[in-house]
């Protein structure tokens, strides 16, 4: 009997290293690829600036940028700006975690809370916080509080909805077996749902730190006397692209450090789990 071309023959999955899908990946290859992906933009930058393809007023060379940066750290007290921005992000981030985690757990756990809070949180998530920035500054003044409020509002709704979704992914049987072992609803919340979603909570917080930096810079661009965002907008006015670039590099470095910090926490506190986000 003869079938069409592809039906008659046996077909096997061809082995592949580069395109492997959950079939193992050489442990040396992944850092190599990561380094490559980070090096490529730097190489392009070097090529364009050292090669003289662009006006150094628009794109200064890496060495010039670093030299300016060191100068800023020495003469312009850039550390104070970094510290100011970092503290704002920390404050907004903690506030968003303190509100977002319990609200997310409650929304995921109780149908009633999902109805009460879920509708609001899921809808407001779509609101463009950036558009509210001038309004918040009008309401809260020019001090530190509007920045913290903007960061808080920017990420709290994501925290809550991501955590509530994680709770809903806990299998029914996991909760049911706890009931048959005598768990009360309180036990269920604190001894089953909370530990079961802890990896997702840490992952959500990690993802939302990036958002926190975005919202900080936006708020500092509009109204601030210090901070990295203020430095960026101030330098931009005088066409000091080297300063702008250095500030961006500083934010990237802080982001990288935060990421490593969360990865470390995850590995130390949750030896039983695997992180699904990067």
């Amino acid at each position, binding site marked *: 009997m003869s079938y069409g071309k592809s039906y008659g023959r046996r077909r096997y999955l061809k082995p592949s290293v580069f395109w492997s899908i959950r079939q193992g990946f050489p442990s040396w290859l992944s850092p190599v690829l990561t380094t490559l992906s980070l090096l490529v933009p730097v190489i392009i930058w070097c090529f364009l600036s050292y090669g003289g393809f662009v006006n150094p007023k628009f794109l200064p060379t890496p060495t010039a940028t670093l030299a300016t940066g060191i100068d800023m750290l020495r003469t312009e007290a850039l550390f104070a700006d970094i510290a100011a921005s970092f503290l704002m992000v920390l404050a907004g981030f903690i506030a968003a975690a303190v509100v977002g985690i319990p609200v997310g757990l409650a929304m995921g756990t109780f149908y009633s809370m999902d109805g009460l809070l879920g509708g609001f949180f899921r809808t407001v998530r779509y609101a463009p916080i950036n558009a509210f920035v001038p309004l918040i500054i009008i309401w809260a003044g020019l001090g530190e509080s509007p920045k913290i409020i903007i960061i808080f509002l920017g990420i709290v709704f994501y925290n809550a909805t991501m955590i509530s979704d994680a709770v809903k992914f806990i299998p029914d*049987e996991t909760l049911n077996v706890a*009931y048959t*072992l*005598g*768990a009360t609803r309180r036990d269920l919340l604190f001894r089953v749902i909370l*530990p079961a979603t802890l990896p997702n909570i840490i992952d959500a917080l990690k993802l939302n730190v990036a958002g926190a930096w975005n919202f900080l810079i936006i708020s500092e661009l509009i109204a601030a006397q210090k901070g990295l965002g203020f430095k960026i907008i101030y330098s931009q006015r005088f066409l000091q692209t080297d300063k702008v670039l250095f500030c961006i590099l500083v934010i990237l470095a802080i982001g990288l450090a935060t990421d490593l910090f969360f990865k470390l926490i995850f590995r130390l506190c949750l030896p039983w789990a695997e992180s699904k986000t990067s």
Partner: protein
Amino acid sequence: MTTFPTTLGQPNRVTSAAKLEIRHITKIFRKGKQANVAVDDVSVQLVSNEFSCIVGPSGCGKSTLLNIAAGLVKATSGEVLVDGEVVPGPGADRGMVFQNYTLFPWLSVAKNVAFGLDLKGMPQSEQRSKVEYYLNIVGLSDCAKAYPKELSGGMKQRVAIARALANDPEVLLMDEPFGALDSQTKEQLQEFFHELWRKSQITVFMITHDVEEAIFLSQRVHVMDKSGKLRETVEISLPAHRDLEMKLTPEFLDYKRHIIHALR
């Protein structure tokens, strides 16, 4: 109830009042206009200290019935009684072993087994000796510190059984607990369960698709049919003490033939 004729005498156990009673339970799953009758007016009495099994084709409503007995699923109508009193929801009196693996992945094997004991506020030292005892029984003493992700499927199920037993339930409900095990481990656990049941005061209600297993372990085998009705209850009048050799005796095979016919 049909009593299957046998040459052997009744087991000499005290058959007191029903420990757990399932009274006229009906469960209908509605999806739009369609209604799916999963369990149709089933009444079962679990006599105190008895081991009963429920067999039936896949999808006939066995798991649904067991979940209702455990208080995890609300019946459309009917009630569940423990010691003659209607129970409103789940509790530690009815322990359960599920069809799928249900270990808590964030707890070590020992902590999994101790979960219910910890909820009761049992002192740590007592917890530890209990955990040790039950892990030894299921042959997993060496894995006490491991996390569930490091165990095989069968090992996970044995931990789940240890966890349910350590909590001292009055009624143990089990949904195909040996389904995922290899035949040697399965027979080992069958013998172990038989011994455990003989020594303890526990009342067991177990779902299985293995007719031999049902006969070997039970005093009563309930047969369900595709429509979610209880078709027949077969009393197994084999001696109270059983060993695996018994599976080859003519009496045993008579029961097996009878139940297999009832399932058709």
